[in-house]
């Protein structure tokens, strides 16, 4: 951590970056994003297991872009998000500095996105055992039971869109949910619109989700909505051999193999 | 450096000299060889004719034993055993559902991570790099390297050497100072398991092999499989009858050739056990 702070300070002092995006102590036992612009403020930076926010979400915000070149504190999920966003043409090597944090909480600086990509080869997306268990449990239910499960889980959703705001991959300027011609998603925060919204969100993230859980962490009423994206992750692994964020593009859902296997098309 | 070994039936019986030479050479290169305890039959050619699961379960048990006994890498000197073991590992890694079935059948934990080496791979990896300084008597002979059928097949599994025209033993023998000959029977069938039941067939098939080697001036045939050895060596009487010609070029295991080149005692290499006298 000290190493990271030292480097952050250095970067701000030399003007190599204009802002360091990291984590700081929030209210209560929570952590929040910190936008450090002055070298003397780097002491605010912290990193521990409570830092679950995916900071990559800020990289695309015009307010942050305005400040100037950022350095970002990046544990694995943030690194993944950065590569995915780069593969989606959202930024390049020139406008970003990455202060990586390994799973062992070691500091490692990346100068090039390509290095991050190589590094991530050792940290492929893997659904945690605990989540796998829940998925399996749901799989074992009957269709009706699953339907009831989700209707119940999703009905309290009041469409605050915190999930969307927390997700680094949800960076569209105009979300489909806000379209009204046609009205793709039923407006009232009632079961139908909720199902449509969360279904569409999961589909939009299929093959792009970096499994950071930021959406579920952000949900004020603790809907396990990351199960939906995890399910797509699992399915893509089973059907297409899985994916990893990659700079060379070739998005898993916008490409195909002529011999993709299915068993349901007549 | 510790290496596990799966001897299999031949190396404990008709091919004791193979075991002896492997151990002698390993010792000379400071490799500790640990036999897998409680090992069983690899299934050979019989098991897969009876049941696929049995044919997978037998080698899987051996591999599981190796894992559980803390062996990361094993050498399997018999080409047939090697083929069964590496084939099984490959198949189970490809098919998780088969794997869980087999794991249930053997009642043991099995990860499928043990490194499996055949004798040539083992030599390549651990002996060749240090061999030059150890050679005391270059093995300056014309040799016919005979690979047989299983050592380099199937390609998809082994990913080792060229299946139709293998080179690995030839390269190795050149390093000992030998001159491997270019000949046509490197991978022809020796008759394999028919040695007892259809001796005549073996005499014909092995006869062609021995004859071609002799015609091309080979002073010895080098093998890496106990079955090949048995057919070419133990059946020499029948072979000579078939060829109507007395050919007495000896058949040596790769390890025996190495042993001779680095000056090991002939007896420790088991050379006296051969039917065809080894006089080189």
């Amino acid at each position, binding site marked *: 951590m000290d190493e990271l702070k030292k480097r952050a300070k250095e970067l701000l002092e030399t003007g190599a970056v204009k802002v360091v995006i990291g984590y700081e102590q929030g209210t209560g036992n929570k952590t929040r994003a910190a936008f450090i612009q002055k070298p003397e403020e780097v002491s605010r930076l912290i990193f521990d297991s409570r830092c679950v926010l995916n900071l990559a979400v800020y990289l695309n915000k015009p307010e942050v872009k305005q400040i100037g070149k950022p350095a970002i504190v990046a544990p694995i999920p943030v690194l993944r998000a950065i590569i995915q966003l780069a593969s*989606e*043409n*959202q930024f390049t090597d020139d406008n970003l500095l990455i202060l990586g944090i390994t799973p062992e909480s070691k500091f490692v600086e990346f100068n090039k996105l390509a290095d991050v990509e190589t590094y991530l080869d050792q940290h492929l997306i893997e659904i945690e055992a605990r989540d796998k268990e829940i998925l399996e449990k749901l799989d074992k239910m009957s269709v009706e039971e699953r339907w009831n499960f989700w209707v119940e889980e999703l009905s309290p959703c009041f469409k605050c869109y915190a999930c969307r705001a927390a997700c680094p991959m949800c*960076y*569209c*300027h*105009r*979300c*489909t949910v806000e*379209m009204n*011609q*046609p009205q*793709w998603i039923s407006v009232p925060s009632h079961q139908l619109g909720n199902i449509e919204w969360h279904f569409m969100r999961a589909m*939009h993230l299929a093959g792009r989700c970096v499994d950071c859980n930021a959406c579920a962490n952000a949900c004020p009423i603790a809907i396990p909505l990351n199960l939906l994206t995890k399910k797509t992750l699992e399915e893509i692994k089973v059907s297409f051999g899985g994916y990893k964020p990659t700079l060379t*593009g*070739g*998005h898993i*859902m*916008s*490409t195909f193999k002529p011999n993709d296997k299915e068993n349901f098309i007549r | 450096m510790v290496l596990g070994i799966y001897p299999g039936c031949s190396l404990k019986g008709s091919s004791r000299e193979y075991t002896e030479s492997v151990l002698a050479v390993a010792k000379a290169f400071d490799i500790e060889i640990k036999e897998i305890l409680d090992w069983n039959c690899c299934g050979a050619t019989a098991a897969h004719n009876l049941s696929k699961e049995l044919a997978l379960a037998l080698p899987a048990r051996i591999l599981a034993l190796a894992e559980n006994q803390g062996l990361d890498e094993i050498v399997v000197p018999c080409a047939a055993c090697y083929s069964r073991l590496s084939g099984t590992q490959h198949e189970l890694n490809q098919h998780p559902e088969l794997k869980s079935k087999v794991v249930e059948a053997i009642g043991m934990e099995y990860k499928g991570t043990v490194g499996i080496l055949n004798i040539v791979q083992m030599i390549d990896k651990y002996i060749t790099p240090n061999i030059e300084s150890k050679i005391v008597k270059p093995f300056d002979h014309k040799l016919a390297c005979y690979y047989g059928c299983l050592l380099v097949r199937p*390609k998809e599994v082994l990913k080792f050497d*060229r299946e*139709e*025209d293998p080179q690995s033993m030839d390269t190795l023998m050149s390093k000992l100072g030998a001159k491997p000959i*270019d*000949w*046509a029977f490197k991978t022809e069938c020796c008759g394999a398991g028919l040695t007892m039941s259809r001796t005549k067939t073996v005499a014909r098939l092995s006869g062609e092999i021995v004859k*071609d080697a002799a*015609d091309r001036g080979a002073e010895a045939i080098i093998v890496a499989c106990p079955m090949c050895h048995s057919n070419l060596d133990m059946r020499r009487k029948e072979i000579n009858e078939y060829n109507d010609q007395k050919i007495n070029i000896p058949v040596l295991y790769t390890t025996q050739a190495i042993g001779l080149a680095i000056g090991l005692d002939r007896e420790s290499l088991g050379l006296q056990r051969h039917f065809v006298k080894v006089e080189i």
Partner: protein
Amino acid sequence: MSRIGVFVCHCGENISATVNCQKVAETASGYEGVVHSVDYKYMCSDPGQTLIKQAIKDKNLTGVVVAACSPRMHEPTFRKACNEGGLNPFMCEMANLREHCSWVHDKGDLTTEKAIDVVRTQVEKVKRNQPLTDIKVPVTKTALVIGGGIAGIQTSLDIANCGHKVILIEKDPSIGGHMSQLSETFPTLDCSQCILTPRMVEVAQHPNITLYTYAELESLDGFIGNFTAKIRKKAKSIDEKLCTGCGLCTTKCPTKKIPSEFNEGLGFRPAVYVPFPQAVPNIPVIDRINCTYYIKGKCKVCEKVCPTKAIVFDQEDEIIEVAVGAIVVATGFGIKQPDFFPEYGYGKYPDVITGMQFERLASASGPTFGEIKRPSDGQVPKKIVFIACAGSRDEAKGIPYCSKICCMYTAKHAMLYQHKVHGGESTVFYMDIRAAGKNYEEFVRRAIEEDTVKYVRGRVSRVYEKNGKLIVKGVDTLLGAMPVEIEADMVVLATAGVANPGAEELAQKLHISYDGYKFFAESHPKLKPIETNTGGIMVAGACQSIRDIPESVSMASGAAVKVACLFSQNELTREPLIAVVNRCAAPLYSTCVGCFLCQSACPYQAIEREEIKDRSGKLIKSIAKVNPGLCQGCGTCVAFCRSRSIDIQGYTHDQVYNEVMALLNEY
């Protein structure tokens, strides 16, 4: 406010027999926005069409729904009628009441109900149609042909003879390709060079053809009708304008022992060389890798002897840029090379050769002047074995496909051998004889019956040398899989044909697709075998899959017609049913966020990058842009776009959404 006219057709009794057409028309008249609704016996007839045109004028219609047969049948008819009536043709939609309703259901209320539903959907759709105009794209009437083999030659001549300009590029120093290497051709046994060289000369002299040999495509930009190609003219080290082709340099060059590519390594050439005597153009090139001057810095014998001072040692590669409207790719095939058949001893035994090497041995212009002599000692082989399918149809070798030409050329080789070596014995090992083609089977029979070539059906497992003979060990499957061993003096392998080395790289430059074997992919395996998926780029000959000469030539002429069609108009007219990326006011400019995932989804590389910049030229954002010349209107990008920033005209989100809603909500 929409003013829609609905026209329900009886189609004689084809529709009205099961659908109550009057009721359909009546119901439709009650829909919001429908101001005119009638039924009529034959809408497609003249009076029927007049009915529509008249109503457009009288009722000032803004949209028309014709409820009749399938749009695949009469959509063009009614769109044309609307246009004549003064309505934009794309404001007309058809409800399929015949193929999808009256013909497939019995008479009854349910059938009429369905007809009513279908009409309602189209009313809702047409309300949201936009007037569209055809897209016009200008055409540069010059074709680029890549590859100067027989396919490239043929296509160039055909296009040029239609009166269009052609730029033909060839990577080797001469055009002619593989065909120029052949001895004789099946199934007529006429001399390959005799029929080819006149065409080569014609190419060189044609006023409409510009020929660049020793040249390769560097890069390609643009789209159908409007490509810009950069061509790398590799340095020949010879001033082409000064060189008279006297050949003095080639005879005086001291480096003479370079294996000749043209003779497949069976003969030699000097470092400054023309590949073969009839080369077009007859201008040598200096092979810099083998030239003593380039290696050691001295020699320059050629420069001394050249009477016209044409040698230019410091010549550099030249990149030229040309504008072309269409491209024909005719880069041909390659032949699987050594190390591939260790079991056949290729590369190990000099007398095991490939079919192409045999062609050179049999060719009158070849290294042996047409005498079949074996490479090892120059002896005439008394016994020769041909192995068909050396690699082809062999999964283990990674080539499961049939190379198609080998059965025929192997029969030809055996025949030529029998003609040239009297008393010689030839044996062909084969899997199946595939001789489908005009006079092909007869040709093979002739080899077997008249020329007494021995055909053995079976594979060869190994070829090895023993006592100076090649032993071919195989099996005769027609004799109960009996092992066969033949002592031969020479073995000829009918090696698999493969894609040209570099095919993949070229495909990427051209943005055309290729299959798993790196052969270029046609647009449709049956109906568009010549077009690629990229508009304006055709393929001809063996670069698409292995082809023989007649097929290559036909394909080349086909490609020429495709090019000529394209060049027959000054502008390309395309249906406007293509994708568009939305644009809106600043600061958004477009809802597109520029993730470009649509790019990889597009089968036509039609999605480009558009940079939106402010007045000072600073980049504000990059967004997707559809190239109307390339987009074919499949809409795959549309369903893929998360922000729905891309939409497809004729099937917009608004149109299809409301079509579906109308289907389900009766009112």
